[in-house]
C-alpha cells in the first residue's frame, strides 16, 4: 500500500474516533443525564405509556447493550421516528439538507470571495483603506451577534429599502440576506487571517529570493506567497464551514425562517423531539469529519512535506 492510501486510512480512522466520541457524548447526554421518557412524554402520561416507550427505546436493557444498540442503529442510518412529524427522522433530514447546503455554500463562497482580495490588499498596504475595512469587518466578525446582524439587515433591506424579502424560502433573492448574514462575520475573520499570514509570508526569506529574481509582484503574491499561505487559509475556511454547519446556520435559519437542518434542530427542541435532534447532531458530526478528511488530503497535495 502506498503512502497516500495509508494517509487516507489513518485519517479515516481518526474521523471514526471523532464520530464515536460525538456519539458517546450524545448517548451520555440523552440517556444517562436526562430521561428521554420524561422529556418525550407529556406530564400526564400514565405509567403504562412510560413503560411502553421505555421498552421501545430499549431503556430496560443494561447500559452497555443500550450503547451497542444505539451505535448499530446510527451506523445503519436508522434514526428512529420523529415524535413531531410521525415519520422517519432520516426523511426529515434528507428533506432539510439541501436548504442548509445552499445557505452554507452561498455564504462561505461569498465570505471567501470577499476575504481573499480584502486580506491580500490589506497585507500589501497596511494602514490604508482596505486594511481599515478588513479590520472593521473582523471586528464585526468578533463582536456582532449573528442573530442581531440578521435582524438589522432585514430592517434595512426589507423594511426600509424594501428591495429584498425578509424571510422564508423561495427564489434566489430569498437566499441573499441569509447568505450575507452568514458570510460577513466569516469574511472578517478570514480576511484578517489572510492578511496576517500573507504579511508573515511576505517577510519570509524566499520572498527576498523572488524579488531578487526580478519577478513581477503578481507572481510573487499570486504564486509564491499564496501557496505558502494556503494551508492556514484553508484550515480557517474549513473551520468556518464546520462552525456554520454546526452552529451559525441554526441562528441564521431561525432568523430568516430558512427551512434547513438548523431550523429543524430548533423545532425539534421546541417539540421535545429528542430523537430528531440526536439524528441531526450525528449527521452534522459525519459531515464535519468528511470536511476535515477532505481538507487533510488537500493539505497533502499542497505541501509535500506534510506526513501522516
Amino acid at each position, binding site marked *: 500500500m502506498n503512502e497516500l492510501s495509508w494517509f487516507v486510512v489513518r485519517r479515516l480512522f481518526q474521523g471514526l474516533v471523532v464520530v464515536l466520541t460525538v456519539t458517546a457524548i450524545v448517548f451520555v447526554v440523552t440517556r444517562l443525564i436526562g430521561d428521554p421518557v420524561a422529556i418525550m412524554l407529556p406530564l400526564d402520561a400514565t405509567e403504562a405509556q412510560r413503560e411502553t416507550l421505555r421498552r421501545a427505546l430499549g431503556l430496560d436493557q443494561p447500559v452497555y447493550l443500550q450503547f451497542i444498540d444505539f451505535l448499530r442503529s446510527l451506523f445503519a442510518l436508522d434514526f428512529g421516528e420523529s415524535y413531531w412529524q410521525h415519520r422517519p427522522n432520516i426523511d426529515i433530514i434528507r428533506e432539510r439538507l439541501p436548504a442548509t447546503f445552499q445557505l452554507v455554500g452561498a455564504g462561505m463562497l461569498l465570505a471567501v470571495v470577499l476575504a481573499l482580495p480584502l486580506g491580500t490588499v490589506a497585507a500589501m498596504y497596511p494602514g490604508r483603506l482596505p486594511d481599515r475595512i478588513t479590520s472593521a469587518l473582523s471586528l464585526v466578525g468578533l463582536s456582532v451577534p449573528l442573530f442581531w446582524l440578521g435582524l438589522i439587515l432585514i430592517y434595512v433591506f426589507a423594511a426600509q429599502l424594501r428591495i429584498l424579502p425578509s424571510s422564508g424560502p423561495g427564489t434566489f433573492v430569498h437566499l441573499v440576506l441569509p447568505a450575507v448574514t452568514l458570510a460577513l462575520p466569516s469574511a472578517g475573520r478570514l480576511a484578517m487571517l489572510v492578511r496576517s499570514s500573507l504579511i508573515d509570508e511576505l517577510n519570509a*526569506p524566499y520572498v*527576498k*529570493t523572488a*524579488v*531578487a*529574481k*526580478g519577478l*513581477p509582484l503578481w507572481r510573487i503574491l499570486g504564486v*509564491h506567497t499564496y*501557496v505558502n499561505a494556503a494551508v492556514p487559509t484553508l484550515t480557517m475556511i474549513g473551520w468556518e464551514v464546520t462552525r456554520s454547519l454546526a452552529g451559525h446556520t441554526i441562528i441564521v435559519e431561525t432568523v430568516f425562517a430558512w427551512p434547513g437542518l438548523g431550523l429543524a434542530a430548533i423545532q425539534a427542541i421546541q417539540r421535545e423531539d429528542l430523537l430528531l435532534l440526536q439524528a441531526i447532531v450525528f449527521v452534522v458530526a459525519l459531515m464535519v469529519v468528511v470536511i476535515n478528511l477532505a481538507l487533510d488530503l488537500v493539505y497533502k497535495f499542497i505541501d509535500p512535506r506534510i506526513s501522516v
Partner: protein
Amino acid sequence: MTPPVPTPWLEVDDLWIEFVTRRGIVPAVRGVSFAIGPGESLGLVGESGSGKTVIAQTIMGLLQSPGRVKRGAVRWQGKPLRFGDRFPRDDVRGHDISIVFQDALAALNPLLPVGTQITEVLTRRFSLSPKTAKERAVELLALVGIPEPRERVRNYPHEFSGGMRQRAMIAIALACEPKLLIADEPTTALDVTIQAQIIYLLRDLQQRLGLSLLFITHDLGVIAALCDRVAVCYSGKIVETGPAEQIFARPAHPYTQGLLQSSAARDDGRDRLLGIDGTPPDLLALPPGCAFAPRCFRADAACNAAVPPLAGVGVDHAAACIHPLVGAEAVR
C-alpha cells in the same frame, strides 16, 4: 588576472546605511565605496555585524525597513540604481545582477518544485516556452553539477541535501544569465568538504561564463581561492582594500593581519582565535577615532582622535590606518 577596466560594471559610491532601532539609529554602513569590473571578483570580508550583508542586500534592492540608505549611490554600468521600494523592479536586478543567499533552505520556496523556481525566471527573462524553459532548467542543474538533473527538476527543496540545495540556488541565480553574481556567505551553512565543492564550482562557473563576482564571507581562506581583489570591512567601513595576493602577503591594517592570523590558526587545527582580542564596537557608541583602535595593539592617542581615511600603502592597495604595518611587520 584582468586589470580593472576604466568603466566598472558595479560601482558602490560612498554608501551610508542606517537602521532605526529602539536604542537609537545604528549606522550599519558608513561611507563604503568599491567597484567591480567585468570578469573581476571581489571578496568582501568581515565579522558578522560589519555591514557586508547589508551592502549586498542594498545592491539587490532588498534593504528593508527599519534599514534605509542615508547617502550614496549604487551604479550599474554608470546608471544609478533605486532603493527603498518594497518590490523593486528594474532591468538590472534579476537581469544583470543576481544573488545567492546563505541559507538555501530558507531562500527557496518550500512549496514549489526546484524546476519551477528556475523556469519562472526563464519565461520572464527570455520569454521561453514552458517546454524550452524546462529543458534549459535541466541544463542549468547539470551545469551546477546536480546529478540526474532531469529527475531533480521535479523535486522540492526539502528533498535535496544541503550542498545540492546550494547548487540549485546557484542554478536559479544563473538562470537570468547575469553579468555579476553576488554570493552572500554561500558556504557558511555547509560542511567543510561541501564548502570546498561549492567554492570550486563558483570559481569554475566564473571562469567559464566570464562572470563578475562579489563574494561575501567572514573567512579569508575562502577568498584566497576565489577572488582577485579583497575589501576588508570593519564596523561598517572598508579598512583595507587591494589585490588579493598583496593583502595576503603584506596586510597593512592590523585588523586584516589579525583576521589572517586567526584564519591561519584555524587551518593549523588550533581551535582558538589568534590575533584579535576584544569584541567589535557597539555601532551605537562608536569611538571618535578609528573603530578598531580599542582592540589594536598599535593604537595610540592619534588613532583615537580622528577616523583615519583610506590611504594608499602600495600599488592599488589602501588601508585606513594611521600606523599601517610595513615591511617585516606586515608578514603574518
